[in-house]
């Protein structure tokens, strides 16, 4: 999914937050990547390590936490979590009307700075 441009944006957000808070270097960045976000963690890591060169995050470690897909079925009323990326029916009742609650995240949750 064009992880390089996502890595660039991720780096930009990190550097901005780092300097806005008055710090000089980024030690680590924690991100949440939903399993249905379309982003491949390996590719994101590769891209990040490439774009961080020459910046104040050039020693930064990217920690990726994958978020599974979960949702709520509008037919049987139960919540569900799944290993699947694309949900076609509710795992409980096979219903086709459901709301996806997690799994599409692409966010930074924490940074270590100094």
């Amino acid at each position, binding site marked *: *999914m*064009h992880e390089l*441009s*996502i890595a*660039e*944006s*991720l780096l*930009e*957000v990190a550097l901005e*937050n*780092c300097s806005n*808070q008055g*710090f000089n270097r980024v030690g680590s960045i924690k*991100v949440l990547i939903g399993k249905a976000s*379309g982003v491949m963690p390996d590719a994101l890591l590769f891209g990040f390590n490439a774009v961080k060169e020459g910046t104040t995050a050039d020693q930064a470690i990217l920690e990726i936490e994958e978020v599974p897909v979960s949702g709520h079925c509008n037919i049987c009323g139960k919540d569900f979590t799944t290993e699947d990326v*694309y949900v*076609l*029916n509710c795992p409980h009742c096979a219903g*086709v*009307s459901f709301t996806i609650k997690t799994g599409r995240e*692409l*966010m*930074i*949750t*924490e*940074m*270590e*700075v*100094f």
Partner: protein
Amino acid sequence: MKLKLADKILTANERIAEGNRKFFDERGIFVINLISSPGAGKTTLLETTIKALGSEVKLGVIEGDIMGTDDAERIDRLGVPVVQINTGGACHLDAGMISDVLGELPLDTTRLLFIENVGNLVCPAEFKLGEDVKVAILSLTEGHDKPLKYPIIFQESKALLISKVDLKPFLDVDVEKIKRDARSLNPSIEIFEISSKTGEGIGQWVQWIKTLIS
């Protein structure tokens, strides 16, 4: 020192797309992003749609291709304002490319803008342009397994046009499976079976557009 954040990774493309969205909203322009594999019939559908709408709606078209101006020339021959973007290699249009050409169309008087994306069933689904809706076209000759193979575009689209239905007698394609699978990915997707060649389904498609922009 640990900084707790909850920042979405909003890419540069999404930021520019939001800028485009604002531009269109300020002028009351409805924007449709047309996405399909190469050869599914996007340009022909546009020609058919333009002829069906006549002068009822003020139209504009942005054409996207890796190279060439064929598509823009076809639209131009119908008297509709059009601009051709050549990506030179990129497999999809992005918001920046759209933003760069906005000055080349008479958008102050445009009501409906079609953006014909680069022929590609994968990447265009992932790059917002600032459009109101995405519309996907899948031609019968592509086979009935495509929705499940390319789920993102079908999840993202407001409508699916199954094109070239005049070829149904010559193909072993299960149209009901296409519709079933598309709806399983996106229960509210509108589906139209069309043939630009015979005109089948075009009336319903055009009526749906008119409802969208009314």
